[in-house]
């Protein structure tokens, strides 16, 4: 019953604001949590709102809340098979927020709800840290703050509370910026993160099954961005090397175990290309570089397959400097074992392709000639490039080469490598990205998931691993102009050429996003050290950073305090001069009694200090005139001030 009584004390409008804030914080979660939870969540939120509108006249009984809590926990457990993972945890957090909203009765509950809203807002960033989500969460914080102001000043109109909240957040802004840039950053994780923390990131995978990559090809998500320090090479030379696939079981290509070797070498010739890559997290170790990388970033290694890998999976956006040489000889990674692996084929599949390759081997002795012949085969037959190829059966290579002849880079690369191996030429599939669009707004080249590509590499005596792109042979336009031109109607809307205004809009948005990524999302311990040393802090240590942080935040707060207290009326100058006079006398043991008027006081002082009588009388007369007389003039004030200044009892 005490609850019911307290219920009436919660003001209605702030409560509505709090529910709005909850809805705003929760809304984006509908995008990434299972739709199974959307419906109960929406229902709960509606219930909260209805409860609040009715003035909470009938709060749900305790047992309902207990039952709901149990039901939602059980639901999460059944769905995720755990209650500890990231998604399960976030879902539980949402349920907790709704249930708390339902039983909000006392001012104490209000704070719990507000803090839960902050947590839910933070949880959004697990899934997306884009500008729109950031904007939405800022709105959420403003609304929550407005609600808190409303609860502490219930009779104030809500617009005023909104203004106060906005003003306070504006003042918190500089503090936030300083903390963001100067707070000593630690590279996470602090402990093992749940297994499912990085699901949902897109990118190339460790396997390639012709027909699978096209899901990636339909995504316009950004894989990485590149800033060229030197002139960028032509589009058909832009091969961004990714995982190399050597194992084939007839259906699927797989990457081998990465091997680090000491004697890896690349014989580069021609001018090198310097560039900086900003790689989106993809939860794998590989880092992309133009073929072939000749200088690696510090924390990276080169595998025996000329793949640049980082030592830990890339789980946050990273930036690295690279140098590549477009003209090269890659003669490492070709010992007997490597070559044997690059010749293995599954038995008993694709007889027609094997027969074709055997024919080439019999007529041509030279590996290079066989390669040329195979490329001619792809060029001469009418292959069609499509992102929606027909399904292939058990003999996928045969069916593609002789029957359907419709496919995209994976089909081409896969069947080409099959033919090479069948003909006795060591070959492997290289996946990665091909092409990239330069954003005219900021000059960054953007490589999207849709630019994913697969090509082949053959081992030739003398020149080592040599790139052969059967797709380029069959469908040159794919490499010259990109996937957009090769399959115009199938690519994502935003990537189609022809819609110029849309492209301009997208370029601007991309440039903005890039800045956002570089400065906000990509701000990590390395970047912090770099920025601080550019600001003149040599060897920024933990201690100096804390010290700088302390003083800078302190001075910002001082400025805010001065700004806030500027409207304070100070004692008027006449009174100040008089008080100073009284202080001087008090130090001489003649303090004014609290009930003593100025004239009485002056009389008493004059009797005790006959030598100073004239000054005391003059000061008092001036003070009384100024303070109680009809007009106060500046001249008399100046005289009073100087008299008081010179006065010594």
């Amino acid at each position, binding site marked *: 019953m005490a609850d019911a009584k307290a219920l009436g004390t919660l003001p209605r409008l702030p409560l509505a604001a709090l529910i709005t804030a909850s809805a705003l914080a929760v809304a984006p979660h509908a995008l990434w949590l299972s739709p199974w939870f959307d419906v109960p969540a929406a229902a709960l939120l509606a219930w909260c709102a209805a409860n609040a509108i009715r003035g909470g006249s009938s709060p749900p009984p305790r047992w309902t809340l207990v039952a709901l809590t149990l039901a939602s926990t059980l639901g999460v457990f059944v769905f995720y098979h755990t209650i500890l993972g990231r998604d399960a945890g976030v879902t539980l957090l949402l349920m907790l927020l709704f249930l708390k909203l339902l039983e909000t009765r006392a001012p104490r509950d209000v704070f719990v709800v507000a803090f839960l809203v902050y947590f839910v807002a933070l949880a959004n*960033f697990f899934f997306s*840290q884009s500008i729109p989500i950031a904007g939405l969460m800022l709105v959420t914080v403003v609304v929550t703050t407005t609600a*808190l102001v409303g*609860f502490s000043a219930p009779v104030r109109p809500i617009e005023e509370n909104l203004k106060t909240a906005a003003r306070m957040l504006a003042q918190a802004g500089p503090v936030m910026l300083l903390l963001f840039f100067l707070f000593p950053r630690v590279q996470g994780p602090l402990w093992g993160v749940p297994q499912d923390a990085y699901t949902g990131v897109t990118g190339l995978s460790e396997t390639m099954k012709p027909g699978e990559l096209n899901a990636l090809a339909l995504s316009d998500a950004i894989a990485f961005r590149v800033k060229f320090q030197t002139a960028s090479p032509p589009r058909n030379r832009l091969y961004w090397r990714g995982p190399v696939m050597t194992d084939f079981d007839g259906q699927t290509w797989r990457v081998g175990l990465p091997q680090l070797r000491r004697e890896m070498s690349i014989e580069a010739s021609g001018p090198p290309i310097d560039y900086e890559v900003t790689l989106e997290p993809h939860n794998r170790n590989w880092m992309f570089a133009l073929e072939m990388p000749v200088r690696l970033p510090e924390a990276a290694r080169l595998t025996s397959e000329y793949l640049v890998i980082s030592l830990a999976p890339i789980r946050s956006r990273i930036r690295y400097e690279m140098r590549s040489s477009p003209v090269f000889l890659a003669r490492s990674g070709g010992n007997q074992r490597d070559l044997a692996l690059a010749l293995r084929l599954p038995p008993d599949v694709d007889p027609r392709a094997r027969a074709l390759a055997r024919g080439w081997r019999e007529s041509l002795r030279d590996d290079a000639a066989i390669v040329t012949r195979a490329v001619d085969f792809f060029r001469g037959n009418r292959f069609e490039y499509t992102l929606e190829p027909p399904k292939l059966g058990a003999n996928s290579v045969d069916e593609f080469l002789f029957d359907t002849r419709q496919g995209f880079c994976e089909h081409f690369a896969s069947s080409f490598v099959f033919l090479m191996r069948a003909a006795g030429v060591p070959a492997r599939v290289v996946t990665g990205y091909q092409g990239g669009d330069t954003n005219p707004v900021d000059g960054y080249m953007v490589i999207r998931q849709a630019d994913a590509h697969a090509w082949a590499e053959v081992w030739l005596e003398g020149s080592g691993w040599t790139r052969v792109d059967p797709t380029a042979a069959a469908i040159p336009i794919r490499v010259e102009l990109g996937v957009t031109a090769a399959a115009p109607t199938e690519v994502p809307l935003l990537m189609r050429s022809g819609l110029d205004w849309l492209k301009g809009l997208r370029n601007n948005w991309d440039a903005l996003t890039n800045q956002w990524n570089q400065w906000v999302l990509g701000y990590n311990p390395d970047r912090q050290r770099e920025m601080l040393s550019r600001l003149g802090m040599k060897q920024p240590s933990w201690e100096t950073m804390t010290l700088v942080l302390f003083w800078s935040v302190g001075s910002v707060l001082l400025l805010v305090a001065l700004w806030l207290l500027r409207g304070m009326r100070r004692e008027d100058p006449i009174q100040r001069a008089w008080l100073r006079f009284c202080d001087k006398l008090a130090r001489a043991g003649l303090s004014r009694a609290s009930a003593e008027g100025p004239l009485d006081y002056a009389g008493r002082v004059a009797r005790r200090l006959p030598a100073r009588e004239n000054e005391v009388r003059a000061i008092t007369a001036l003070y009384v005139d100024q303070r109680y007389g009809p007009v106060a003039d500046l001249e008399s004030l100046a005289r009073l001030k100087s008299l008081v200044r010179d006065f010594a009892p």
Partner: protein
Amino acid sequence: MKLDRVLQYSQAYNFYQWVFKRHAPEPGVVFLTQRRVYILPTRHGLSFGASLILMLIGSINYNLSLGYVLTFLLAGLGVVSILHTFRNLVHLYVSAGRVAPVFAGDVAQFQIVFENRSDFERHSLELACGPARTSCGVPAHGHRVVVLPVKTVKRGWLQLERVTVDTRFPLGLMRAWSYVQPDMRALVYPRPDTAPLPVPEADSDTGDAVSTGAGTDDFMGLRPYQASDSPRHVAWKASARSEALLTKLFAGRAASELWFDWERLPAAMTTEARLSRLARWVLLAEERGLHYGLRLPGATVPLGEGFPHREHCLKELALFRG
């Protein structure tokens, strides 16, 4: 064990003394300087801080840049709210307002005046004095009179205890407070008793014999109005005709001399019971427009009537020391 207690008590006493000395009743206008406004986080402020630490750990663990942004923004908000809360209370002028006399057991309404000479409004100031609580806001360049209802128990002067003025505006995360003790006291009259006894008859030893004095029964004539005359005895019609106000004079038995005498009360009655009885008689006599006086040991209120006379009598009763 005992020694501990004594020490504890003495320390508490010292502390009390210290606080009391700093906040002894202050005459005139009290200015809330920076130095006398204290500020500390509330319980919710502490849990806000704990939440922020959790959010920071989460942001570090998952490398959430926007998590840092959110956490630091909220941290900035928390720090800024210290300034706002402090500003909401500091530099106010507090002075004593009026307080009307009440009867013991009733609620004395202490009026406290808040003056705000700054350019911004003050919100949600909470006043507490013992169990008494009230709240108010003060507009910019304005003042607000707040009534603090204090329950009275004993007759006599009731000095206003130290008042805690606090505010949690704007976020409720911080609490700024200050102590003020405006020098104001309420006069508490003895509670009139409820015994079903009539007003005593006129003195037996004077009685009818002296029937020349002024009374209320029979109209005797008119005389010029004096400040102490009851308004109900003003002869309005006659006054309208003449230049000045005139008062009607009455003669009668009851008017003779209605003395409420401490000594006449039964000897068994305690001091407070006597005072209560006398208070009731004063009220009844005034209600009926009678002419009455009060005799206490050491104090006598001469015969009279009207509101000031009643107040005079009640004040004597309130401040009576046996």
